[in-house]
């Protein structure tokens, strides 16, 4: 009987959302404020099992309920808990891209919380449209572990899409709240007193929080639907071009690619293998890297302070000792948080000869990549940063680069390199 006792499924605690500890630790938020922020987010967005949204978000709660909660099927065969069933093992319960399988994946799964998505049709700083997210869900991302969900029923895909936006908005709200607390709520490190955050009894605070939601979070998502990159009809290469015309365009694109105006070879390398600059980071790795560097710097400061401590006496010594103790506590916390993160990875530029375009291979997709770069990565925009602004390349030049890039996988490299310079990193 004792052997069988272990077979009984214990009721485990339902999973909970967690705050972004890198953000919390970097801003040195005290536990009371962390709890207050978590409570506000719970009030505004609910829990992984029971989602909730304010009408201002424009999200459909019915779809969220299909996606949220534990994974199970009812008598009629309808599947519940779609997110946890299909997505959470990579993207994590909070959508932080740190699910149980994330550590073994290259590239890492997307962290939804900053609201930055790489492959979209909008201007670089903006959110993706529903169409963009739908395309990613339906087709997956080739060259990564993101699979296609096209064989799923359309209502399940729609529910997952809604839940991704929900997690993203929640993450953006969390960042907005952290920033608000840092800017507006006092904490006295000497006395240890933290000003209270009382959403229930403070109407000004409620108003501030709501405006954070509508202006800092929701407005950006609504804007994205209008801000789709639509190439100008007059510059789009016509269909049915002759071989000669295409070759001329490819030639012009080649000159731009290897020239200084577009400067593609700086990252994509002298033969487009992606072996140029490889030591930059994408947004998500950079956040961790910056945090790690801050931790190292803090450790160095503590060493210096310890040396200086010996030279002080009396009250100055007591104060310095208290400060040093506080810094050491901070260092321990930062080290714990850093240890839990996925190791930051360099952003390796795409090997353009591999014929694998993660964001889509249509001329329109490549045009959007050249025009707006890839949000969250070092791939820069050569087009306008927002509608009406000026870019570095004209639309015609962008299309020429697109033609060249599409021809690259079929172009024999003159004096071809046998292997890229950093072949371990350029395996894509």
């Amino acid at each position: 009987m004792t052997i069988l006792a272990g077979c009984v499924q214990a009721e485990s605690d339902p999973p909970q959302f967690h705050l972004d500890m890198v953000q919390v630790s970097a801003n040195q938020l005290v536990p009371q404020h962390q709890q207050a922020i978590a409570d506000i987010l719970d009030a505004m967005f609910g829990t992984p099992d029971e989602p909730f949204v304010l009408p201002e978000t424009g999200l459909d709660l019915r779809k969220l309920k299909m996606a949220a909660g534990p994974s199970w099927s009812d008598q009629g065969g309808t599947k519940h808990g779609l997110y946890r069933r299909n997505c959470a093992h990579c993207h994590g319960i909070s959508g932080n891209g740190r699910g149980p399988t994330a550590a073994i994946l290259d590239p890492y799964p997307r962290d939804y919380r900053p609201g930055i998505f790489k492959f979209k049709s909008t201007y670089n700083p903006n959110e993706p449209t529903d169409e963009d997210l739908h395309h990613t869900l339906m087709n997956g991302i080739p060259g990564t572990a993101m699979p296609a969900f096209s064989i799923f029923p359309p209502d399940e895909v729609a529910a997952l899409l809604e839940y991704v936006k929900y997690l993203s908005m929640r993450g953006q709200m969390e960042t907005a709240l952290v920033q608000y607390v840092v800017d507006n709520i006092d904490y006295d490190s000497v006395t240890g007193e933290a000003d209270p955050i009382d959403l229930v009894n403070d109407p000004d605070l409620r108003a501030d929080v709501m405006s954070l939601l509508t202006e800092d979070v929701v407005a950006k998502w609504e804007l994205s639907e209008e801000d789709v990159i639509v190439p100008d009809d007059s510059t789009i290469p016509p269909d049915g071009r002759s071989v000669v015309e295409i070759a001329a365009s490819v030639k012009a694109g080649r000159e731009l690619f290897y020239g200084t105006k577009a400067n593609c070879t700086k990252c994509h390398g002298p033969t487009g293998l992606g072996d140029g600059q490889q030591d930059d980071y994408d947004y998500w790795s950079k956040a961790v890297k910056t945090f790690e560097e801050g931790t190292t710097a803090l450790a160095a400061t503590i060493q210096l302070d310890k040396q200086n401590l010996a030279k002080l006496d009396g009250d100055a010594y007591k104060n310095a000792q208290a400060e040093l103790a506080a810094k050491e506590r901070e260092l321990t916390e930062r080290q714990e948080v850093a240890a839990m993160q996925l190791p930051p990875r360099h952003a390796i530029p795409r090997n353009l000869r591999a014929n694998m375009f993660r964001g889509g291979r249509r001329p329109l997709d490549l045009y959007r990549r050249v025009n707006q770069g890839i949000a969250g990565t070092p791939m820069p925009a050569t087009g306008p940063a927002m509608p009406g602004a000026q870019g570095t390349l004209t639309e015609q030049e962008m299309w020429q680069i697109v033609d060249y890039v599409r021809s690259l996988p079929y172009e024999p490299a003159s004096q071809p390199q046998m292997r890229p310079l950093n072949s371990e990193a350029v395996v894509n």
Partner: protein
Amino acid sequence: MNRFWALVFLLVPVLGVATFVVAPYYHHWFPPDVSELGRVIDRLFMFVLWLTGAVFVATECTLFYFMWKYNARSNHEPIKFSHGSHTLEVVWTILPTVTLSFIAIYQMNAWADAKMRKPDVPITAEITGRQFNWDVRYPGADGVLNTPDDIFRYDGQIHLPVNEEILLLIQSRDVLHSFFLPNIRIKQDVVPGMAQNMWFKAKVPGEYDIVCAELCGWGHYRMRGRVTFEPRADYEAWLKRMYDEQEAKTVAMTPSE
């Protein structure tokens, strides 16, 4: 009491046979076969099943008989030892050898048709398995793979012409997978670094499953797709639509995704 155990052992052939009899009624049997070679493969399966089933029932019943007849409670005579029977040993070596050799030779043609006699047709599509998705690349209008007019699809929905000999090039991007079409009765492991061919002919148009049949990681169970067999005209129209979508240069041209 020992006779009780003899009866328990008798349950093995009884329940074993019962499972196979009852399975089709619970839809735990073959998925519909729509291929040309599937008939032969299913017939072979049933032949081997009946043959081994008969041997199974015979040996289990013999076991039951001996357990029943010679159980310790009911037998009070002194034990008799035998030095074995040379004849018996020869018989029960020769018979299985002949049977197994027969099966080995009987199936050779089917195996050769499925795995060795590659049809002389151009490659219809290149299928790449990755963790955990099936990607496909069609040769496009020029009929040659690895040219600029190739059509790439990553959504796991593969279209192929019906009633035509199809030749696939299958490969893996990362680890072992197996491209399995249950309704065509064909599967082949995709081995990293090894491009292989797979061929078949589908006889009935429709949508069927693609599943991964080699454990490839935590997503193996959900590495699925749909293959659609359609008449050549529809297939080519679909390819053209996919090619046009792939060549989209402007927003108005893209169909709703």
